[in-house]
């Protein structure tokens, strides 16, 4: 547990806040762009869930890895992805992470251990397991955090991934972001029992944490990461949280209201950025700095947007590139 202890102590609290603010600023910008009709494709925003991605990634090194989801912007930024390259990808530009081939649901940065957002719900579970397998086989001291949603918890690959990583003691942290909705369905209506309990039959610890409390998530992740690095195998964490926005931007045209207003209000009152800021201020942090940080991050995102917008569209012919790697 030495590493977990060290990581807990070394935490840069303001840095955590700044990263959450970056995600918030990025998503706000994306929202605005979508509204103006400037964004192609599907967009699923992470607003309200920032504490999960930031808390979990705060205990990872660059060489550690994550797999992400269709709601992945927050995970990627938390893991250090470049907002410029992300924004360019969202706008379908040549300079984007995937040269415009991927878009919001498929951003990848292998150099940062980001093994991919995924458009298939649950698709990252086997991939994260394989990443853990590689670490195990090669004897590398690395871990993989697999983000997945409450909806994804009903895919059979969760069961398989838990079993496989248990029998092989793989260094994988299965992190369920329970925002209580599967698209427009209340997840509890289609899900039996507690998600955190789903690892128990495999002898894997499963815990529930407040996903709007960045330090609580960090703490749970640190414990799981320490366990993984010690060779003791996988863990499951269920982080309870909420998305302030719709399932995807633009849902209003067909969804109508589908969540109780007081539920929405209650969760917005527990906005993870506000919660954390208040806590830090209560603990003596200078209040002004938070607005500054937010402004700085907003500027950064504006720059990212300018970079993206000024970038060229990919050449049509490039659509035929990148399918196969050249053989030696």
């Amino acid at each position, binding site marked *: 547990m030495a590493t977990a202890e060290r990581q807990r102590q070394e935490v840069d609290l303001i840095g955590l806040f700044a990263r959450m603010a970056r995600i918030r600023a990025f998503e706000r910008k994306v929202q605005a762009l979508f509204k103006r009709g400037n964004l*192609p*494709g*599907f967009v699923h925003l992470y607003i309200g869930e920032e504490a999960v991605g930031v808390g979990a990634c705060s205990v990872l090194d660059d060489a550690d890895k994550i797999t992400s989801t269709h709601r992945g912007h927050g995970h990627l930024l938390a893991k250090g992805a470049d907002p410029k390259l992300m924004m360019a*990808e969202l706008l*379908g*530009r040549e300079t984007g992470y*995937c040269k*415009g*081939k*991927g*878009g919001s*649901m*498929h951003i990848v940065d292998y150099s940062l251990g980001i093994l991919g957002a*995924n*458009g*298939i*719900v*649950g*698709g990252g579970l086997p991939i994260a397991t394989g990443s853990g397998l590689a670490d195990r086989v090669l004897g590398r001291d690395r871990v993989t955090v697999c983000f997945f949603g409450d*909806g*994804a918890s*009903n*895919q*059979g690959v969760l069961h398989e991934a838990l079993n496989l990583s248990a029998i092989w003691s793989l260094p994988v942290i299965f992190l369920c972001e329970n925002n209580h909705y*599967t*698209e*427009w*369905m209340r997840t509890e*209506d*289609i*899900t039996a029992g507690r998600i955190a309990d789903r690892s128990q039959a495999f002898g894997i610890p499963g815990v529930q944490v407040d996903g709007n409390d960045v330090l609580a998530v960090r703490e749970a992740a640190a414990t799981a990461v320490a366990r993984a690095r010690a060779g003791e195998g996988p863990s499951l964490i269920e982080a309870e949280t909420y998305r302030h926005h719709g399932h995807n931007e633009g849902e209003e045209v*067909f*969804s*109508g209201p*589908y969540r109780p207003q007081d539920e929405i209000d209650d969760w917005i009152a527990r906005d993870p950025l506000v919660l954390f800021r208040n806590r830090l201020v209560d603990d003596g942090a200078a209040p002004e700095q938070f607005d500054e940080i937010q402004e700085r991050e907003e500027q950064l995102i504006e720059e990212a947007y300018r970079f993206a917008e000024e970038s060229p*569209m*990919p050449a*049509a*012919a*490039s*659509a*035929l590139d990148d*399918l196969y790697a050249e053989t030696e």
Partner: protein
Amino acid sequence: MTETLVKDTYMTTAIAGALKAAMAEDESVIVLGEDVELSTIGCTKGLVDEFGTNRVRNSPISEATVVGSCVGAAATGLRPVMDLMFSSFFYVALDQVANQAARLRYMSGGQVDLPLVYFAGTGPSGSAAAQHSENPHSLLMHLSGIKVVFPSSPGDAAGLLIASVRDPNPVVFLLDLMLAGSKGPVPAEIEPLLIGKAEVKRSGDDVTIVAIASAVGAALEVAAELEADGVSAEVIDPRTLTPFDWDAVTESVARTGRLVVVDPARRTCGAAGEIVARVTESNWPDLKSRPRRVTWEDVPIPFSPVLEEAVTLRQDQIREAVTATVAGNGRA
């Protein structure tokens, strides 16, 4: 019948209407899938209000098991209609489609009927990228044992949907998402259309264009353009791919002697190749010039609009292919 046409009905509304009629006429029809109560694409909209949650069931994201549960339910008295939302998700559940739904009747020596429908939106819908833009019809055609319906107009969709639900066999019913927002006439009383019957969407003498789903509209436009150049193009919409109305196509090519196939799908081992091969075999003596295919490129569907456009069907390609085919004469 034309008097009773409800004009300008959306494709999605036409399907929803047909589904409602199918549920009303037969109590054993149920609808299940993710968000079928709310209806993401719109084809199950309002059904839960009409028929209640016993027959309209929101299901968890467990495609393999929900697809497979339709097999078990169909074998024991229900007629399930499952909405898979995007056809890319078939891959998550393909065992239950390919090894179970499409096999149980045959393997059991014909003991059981499996009246079930797998509905899915399909194909590119504008930068939905590689995992939400597949067109799996060719792959499903290769399986055998499961019917494949892929209509191009609201009227056809409504009639074929009713027929699919009434059919005693497993049917995949695909809604080309490029057409989700398109409109057309639909009869007020929806009558079932025959599964396995093509429709000549435009008659012509010089060349046969076989076009699938959203390619039909593009082919018709090209045909209309080419009329000015004195080219008389026939446009055939197979409407259902399994079973396929080979007679309609071979009869047409026997007259025109020329074939262009337009298929919104990757080329290799796709439906277009099958049609070219089959017609080449059956109509060899009739063919006056080289048959041609217009398809997607053999790559996944990329995200960026410019790239998506580059790999999917473009009208100019259809025009070129038809022009070249008409120009061809004999072996040249």
